[in-house]
C-alpha cells in the first residue's frame, strides 16, 4: 500500500490489519516518521520526535502480535502526545522556554496507559505555551494549519490537531481546559473529545486549572476516538478528582443510530455575535441530517450560556495564576508576552469577582444538567469562525473592547461544558467558502461519553466531511 494511503487509514483499520498480520507496525511507524520528516518544518506539529524509540517499540509490537500476545485495538498503533504530559526519560516542555530541557523522571497516567495498551509513541506535540491560548512567540516554531499554512491550527493542543489531520500520526492526545481539544479538532477537521471531568487522570499533566483540565483523544474518526478514550479513561488513585465509576464500552453501541433521540440546538451559541455565516450555516444544516436519521431536534435557550467566556477566564486563569506564581516571580521574562500579561492580569483578580464567577458557574452547570434531562445531547458551534490568520491572533490587545471582542465571545462556545464538567466533542461538519474545516460540537450528560460518541458516529456515517484531506 502506498504510504500516502497508509498514513490516512483509520487507526482501527490499521489495528485490524496488524492483528491479521497483513501489516507490520514497523512499516506503519516508518511511514509516519517519513511524513513527519517531510512536512514538519512547514507545520511545526512536533516538539520532540522519538524515532529510534518508536522503531524499537514497533519491532516489539510486531513480535508480540506474531506470538499471539495481542493487547487490543491500539496495539502497535502510533500515537503522539501533547507536550504537557510527563513522559519518563523524554523531554516534556509545555512549549515553554523555562522547561525546554526538562526530562521527567516519571510517567503521566495518560501516557502510562497508552504504553500499557501497546501504542507506539511517535513524539511530543507542539502547543501554546503552558496550554494558554494565545502565544505570540513559539519557542519550538509556530504551529500552522495544514489546510492553510497562514492560519492557526487552533489552541492549545495545536500539534494534536495538526498531526492526525496531516497524516503525521494515527491518533493523538490533547488536553482541554477551556476548549483546547475541540478547537484544534474543529480547525484542523478531525474529531476531538473533552471527556467528563474526572473521567481521565490529570496525574503528571502540567496544570492550568485544577477543576477543568481534562485529557482527551484527537483522531480522524469517531471509532478511533472511542477506542482511544477507552484506553486512557478510568480511576486513578493519584488524582483526587478521578472518578471511580467503571469505564463504559464506548465502541459497542457506535452503530446504534439516533432514532428517537432528542438533539437540542444551543440557540444563543449558534446566534452569538461573531459567529460567521459559514459556521452558522454548517451547524444549522446538521439538523436535516439528524432529522433524516430519525432524531428529534429543537432549539434550546439556557440563561448565562453566552457569558461563559469571562466566567471561565475568571476561574481558569485565577487557578493558573496560582500555579505560576513562583515561576512568574523568578522567570517572568522567559514567558511569552501574551501568557505573561494574561497571568499578571489574573494574579490581580479580586476574590469577590472570582466568587461571582463561581456562583455563575454553578448556575450554568445546574441549568445544563436540567436541560440534559430533556435532551440526549446539545449541539452548537465549536468556534465562531474557521481558523483565523496567525497574524490576527498574535496582535497585541489595544483596548478593553478589543479583549472583549476577540476573547470573551469566542471562549463562550466551548467553555460552558468545561465549567459544568460535561463531555463535549468536535466532529467535522463542513467547510468554509475558502476551504477551511468547520466543527460541530456535541455535548452530553456527565459520564455519558457513550451517547456523545454514538450521536457523533451517526452523523459521521451520514456525511463525508471526515474523509477530506488537507492539501499539504
Amino acid at each position, binding site marked *: 500500500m502506498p504510504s500516502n494511503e497508509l498514513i490516512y487509514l483509520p487507526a482501527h483499520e490499521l489495528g485490524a490489519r496488524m492483528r491479521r498480520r497483513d501489516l507490520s507496525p514497523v512499516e506503519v511507524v516508518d511511514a509516519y516518521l517519513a511524513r513527519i520528516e517531510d512536512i514538519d518544518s512547514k507545520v511545526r506539529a512536533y516538539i520532540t520526535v522519538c524515532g529510534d524509540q518508536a522503531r524499537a517499540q514497533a519491532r516489539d509490537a510486531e513480535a508480540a502480535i506474531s506470538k499471539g500476545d495481542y493487547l487490543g485495538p491500539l496495539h502497535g498503533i502510533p500515537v503522539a502526545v501533547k507536550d504537557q504530559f510527563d513522559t519518563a526519560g523524554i523531554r516534556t516542555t509545555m512549549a515553554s522556554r523555562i522547561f525546554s530541557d526538562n526530562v521527567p523522571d516519571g510517567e503521566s497516567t495518560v501516557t502510562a496507559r497508552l504504553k500499557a495498551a501497546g501504542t507506539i509513541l511517535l513524539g511530543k506535540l507542539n502547543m501554546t505555551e503552558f496550554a494558554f491560548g494565545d502565544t505570540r512567540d513559539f519557542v519550538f516554531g509556530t504551529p500552522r494549519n495544514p489546510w492553510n499554512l497562514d492560519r492557526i491550527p487552533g489552541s492549545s493542543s495545536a500539534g494534536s490537531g495538526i498531526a492526525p489531520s496531516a497524516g503525521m500520526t494515527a491518533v493523538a492526545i490533547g488536553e482541554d481546559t477551556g476548549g483546547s481539544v475541540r478547537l484544534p479538532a474543529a480547525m484542523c477537521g478531525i474529531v476531538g473529545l473533552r471527556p*467528563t*471531568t*474526572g473521567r481521565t487522570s490529570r496525574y503528571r499533566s502540567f496544570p492550568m486549572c485544577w*477543576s477543568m483540565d481534562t485529557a482527551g483523544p484527537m483522531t480522524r474518526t469517531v471509532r478511533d476516538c472511542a477506542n482511544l478514550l477507552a484506553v486512557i479513561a478510568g480511576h486513578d488513585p493519584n488524582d483526587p*478528582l478521578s*472518578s*471511580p*465509576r467503571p469505564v463504559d464500552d464506548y465502541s459497542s453501541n457506535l452503530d446504534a443510530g439516533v432514532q428517537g433521540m432528542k438533539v437540542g440546538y444551543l440557540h444563543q451559541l449558534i446566534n452569538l455575535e461573531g459567529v460567521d455565516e459559514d459556521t452558522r450555516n454548517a451547524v444549522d444544516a446538521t439538523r436535516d441530517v439528524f432529522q433524516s436519521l430519525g432524531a428529534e431536534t429543537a432549539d434550546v435557550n439556557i*440563561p*448565562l450560556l453566552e*457569558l461563559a*467566556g*469571562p*466566567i471561565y*477566564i*475568571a476561574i481558569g486563569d485565577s487557578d493558573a495564576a496560582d500555579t505560576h*506564581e513562583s515561576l*512568574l*516571580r523568578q522567570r*517572568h*521574562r522567559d514567558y511569552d*508576552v501574551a501568557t*505573561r*500579561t*494574561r497571568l*499578571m*492580569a489574573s*494574579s*490581580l*483578580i*479580586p476574590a*469577590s*469577582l472570582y*466568587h*461571582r*464567577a*463561581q*456562583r*455563575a*458557574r*454553578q*448556575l450554568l*452547570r*445546574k441549568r445544563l444538567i436540567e436541560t440534559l434531562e430533556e435532551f440526549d445531547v446539545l449541539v452548537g458551534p465549536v468556534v465562531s469562525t474557521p481558523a483565523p490568520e496567525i497574524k490576527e491572533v498574535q496582535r*497585541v*490587545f*489595544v*483596548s*478593553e*473592547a*478589543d*479583549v*472583549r471582542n476577540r*476573547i*470573551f465571545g469566542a471562549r463562550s462556545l466551548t467553555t460552558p461544558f468545561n465549567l*459544568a*464538567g460535561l463531555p463535549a466533542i468536535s466532529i467535522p461538519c463542513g467547510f468554509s467558502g475558502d476551504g477551511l474545516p468547520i466543527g460541530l460540537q456535541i455535548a452530553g450528560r*456527565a*459520564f455519558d461519553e457513550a451517547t456523545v460518541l454514538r450521536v457523533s458516529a451517526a452523523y459521521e456515517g451520514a456525511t463525508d466531511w471526515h474523509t477530506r484531506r488537507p492539501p499539504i
Partner: protein
Amino acid sequence: MPKEVNRGYSEPLTREDVARLAHLRGLPVEESDLDEIRFRLNALSDALASLDDPELDTTDPLPILLDREAR
C-alpha cells in the same frame, strides 16, 4: 434601594494602579505590559459585573465539581 453590583475594583484600573498592585503582590512587571494587563483586567471586571441573573446571589460559589454519586 438599587442593588449594588460588586465589580471588584471601584473603578477601571490605570497603568499606575496595575504597577502598584503588582508591586504589592511581589510580582515583577514590565512597563511595556501594563496596558495589556489593565485591558484584560478591566474587561473581565466589566463582564463579571454585568452578569445579571436573578439566581446569581442565592447560588453558593462552590469551587468543585466532584462526582458525588460515585464517591
